[in-house]
């Protein structure tokens, strides 16, 4: 399958020239095409923000919901029809700020979905305020004296919750990012890919050269080693990229709800057993 299967006929892309979202869109289409995922069988769920516009530039099923709320509908869509491939994709403000509670509990719930977070360490759509991942000292029109909140560490949090799959990628490296995304999508269970993405308009600190300078790929890393993964996730001098941790032993949400062991049929194909309901109602007659 070719990446252009996901191309829209005409799109008016709202991102700035040079925006880190542009390569992510291209990489995602390539990864999906290489995995032979059909546009009709994919649902892209997003929230609100610059990154959250991505479903409008990719020809597939789309659920562009509320700010911070991509994960709950993504979980439900997968649970209602496990045959669909479901990707929840938004930015750092959306997933880690407004949607922080859903982020924590979706990891615990472990639905078989992929969570892609474009992490540019700033709010783009609202023009340059701090995000949960902004670095200490980062000055903005709101954080006038520089950010003093401890940056949110999504990888360490995910590993602490014994996430099924967690990786970090960099939008400037198409090849490696594509490979990471492919592994995340085929992982059985919840998979988090945090993608560093420069914001050329509102983040003059974390630029393309800055990311190049401050990142490196994990080497000789055993992704089943949770302790080491956590240690790597808390490094700040240079930020590691790659797959930090995989736990493929966990049951998925769809497996745990117990509806799909006997039959695969999605919920919309199932019918109510009226006789069963009738006999349940009869129990309220209270007979000896």
């Amino acid at each position, binding site marked *: 399958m070719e990446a252009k299967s996901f191309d829209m006929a005409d799109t008016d892309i709202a991102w700035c020239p040079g925006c880190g979202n542009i390569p992510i869109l291209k990489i995602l289409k390539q990864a999906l095409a290489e995995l032979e995922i059909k546009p009709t069988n994919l649902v892209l769920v997003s929230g609100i923000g610059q990154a959250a516009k991505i479903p409008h530039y990719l020809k597939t099923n789309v659920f562009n919901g*509320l700010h911070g709320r991509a994960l709950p509908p993504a979980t439900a869509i997968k*649970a209602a029809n496990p045959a669909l491939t479901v990707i929840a994709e938004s930015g750092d403000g959306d997933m880690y700020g407004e949607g922080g509670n859903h982020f924590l509990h979706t990891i615990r719930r472990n639905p078989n979905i992929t969570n892609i977070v474009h992490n540019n360490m700033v709010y783009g759509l609202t023009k340059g305020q701090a995000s949960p991942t902004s670095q200490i000292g980062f000055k903005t029109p709101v954080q006038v004296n520089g950010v003093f909140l401890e940056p949110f560490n999504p990888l360490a949090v995910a590993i602490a919750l014994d996430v099924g799959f967690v990786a970090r990628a960099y939008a400037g490296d198409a090849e490696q990012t594509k490979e990471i995304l492919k592994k995340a999508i085929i992982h059985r269970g919840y998979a988090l890919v945090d993608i560093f993405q420069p914001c050329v308009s509102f983040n003059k600190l974390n630029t393309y050269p800055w990311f190049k300078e401050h990142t490196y790929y994990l080497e000789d890393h055993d992704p089943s080693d949770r302790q080491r993964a956590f240690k790597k996730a808390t490094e700040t001098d240079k930020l590691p990229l790659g797959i930090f941790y995989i736990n493929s032993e966990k049951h998925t949400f769809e497996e745990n709800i*117990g509806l799909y062991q006997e039959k695969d049929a999605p919920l919309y194909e199932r019918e109510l057993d009226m006789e069963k309901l*009738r006999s*349940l109602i009869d129990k309220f007659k209270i007979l*000896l």
Partner: protein
Amino acid sequence: MATNSLFQNADNVSIVLCGQAGMGIQTVEFLLTRILKLAGYNVFATKEYMSRIRGGTNSTEIRMSSEAIGSSVSRIDILIPLNKGAIQHVEKRISPQTVILADKETIGEDFDQTRHKFVDVPFTKTASEIGDKIYSNVVAVGVMARMFGIELQTVSEFVGKFFSDKSGGVVQKNITAVKAGYKLSEDLQDSAGIGFNVNKDTNVEDQILLSGTEAVALGAIAGGCNFISAYPMSPSTGVLVFLAKHAKDFGIIAEQAEDEIAAINMAIGAWYAGARAMVTTSGGGFALMTEGLSLAGMLESPIVIHLAQRPGPATGLPTRTEQADLELALYAGHGEFPRIILAPGKVEDGFYLIQKAFNLADKYQVPVFILTDQYFIDSYYNTACLDLSDINIEKHVIKTDVNYKRYKLTANGISPRGIPGLGQGLIVVDSDEHDETGHITEDLDLRTRMVNKRLEKFELLKNETIPPQLTGPRDYENLVVCWGSTYNVVKEAVENLSKENVAVLHFKQVYPLPNETVNYLQKARKTLIVENNATSQFSKLIKLHTGIDIKNKILKYNGLSFYVEELSNKLNESLD
């Protein structure tokens, strides 16, 4: 039984059990109501309780009657106080006729024969002789059952069945406790002269004993509900619990969400993928869902919302009742979009209305509310068995082709709804204003057309409303208006009036307001509204949509539902 026995001529009797949380009142209530039903009596029960798991003082009211009943009375014929302080808790409801069956040993100085009509019943001592004072509740069941003339065989068998998952020893002890209660009762009836002669009703046997919670949950199943996401909150949680219990049998996903925001967003996601989903919550939880409600409005997603009201603002009185979230349901969510609000009166309305709610939500792609309250949810009585013969699960999902547009502009505003994976079309939905394909747009002419499209559905909803139900003479002069859970109490209060010219108009659909409303109101010489809130929210809604101002109001907002006598007295004062 002596013919001069107390209550000998009563056609209905009110029994109140009162004690601390955790004392087993609910076990007595459960056993007694079922045994009464089994014996062929009409039975009604409701409870009021504090927001705590242990201690405090809670009470349960059980009515048995020769005729069908569905409401709460203030009058107490028999009171069983289970601890010190229990009598004080219900003091206002005690009259000189009230017989208090109390264990002197347990309630101590509260046992005061100079003030009230006490009968000493050694529940605890009897239970201790069996082996543990824990059996005193079942002793009480035996006492009551004998008093109502129910055969020991029936009671023992039912008690045995109730405790059947316990060990053989425990089952036997409970049966022994029932028998001991019977023995106590024999002595009592002779000494205290208590006797009942309430007639049995042959209709009862085939009927079901149903609570508001059970009605709503069973109705959801009958509506094809296969997905419920909710966050626990009194008094709405029972519906989630019921559906979770039966999830495997009926193929339902029942998920406890991390918060109400997740719950409603999950439910909308589930509908998107072809499920039939609902949420169950109360005022504070629904407040968190309002953003999601607005999303449903924009996506034109079906959603069924069970909103079980309790008194607010904020945490309010968590375990008590009120009808004060009508305006919340009516105006919740930013922006303008249509919705439907239904409010069951009779317990079986809970079943039929939510069943219909799933069909309406799917057909019109709008949010549909079922507005109940703690009183409705926690009360139960025998009613005709639910009729499934006319139940249809109407599905409106289509198989799409490659040119499918989710928001195709149509003559009536309804765009056929596809779901991902069924057909060759792509299903694109967006919380932003969108074009016909579902993609984001800032074309402002299109915006106007999309707003009109969503609001056109409101016109359709107005033509498919459930008419209000008139009870009483058709040539009424006085019209008592009510909605939701107050139906039974208003009906019984009006029946108790000596006036002939009073009718009751009950609304189980409150929005859009049924077209028949104006005619009914205009025909009355005097109209009066009864609501369990402080600002008469429904009369405001009626005024807004009809211009008719119902000036006479009976409102109650102390956290309790109306009692029949209280309402009769107020109606007597107000009506011509």
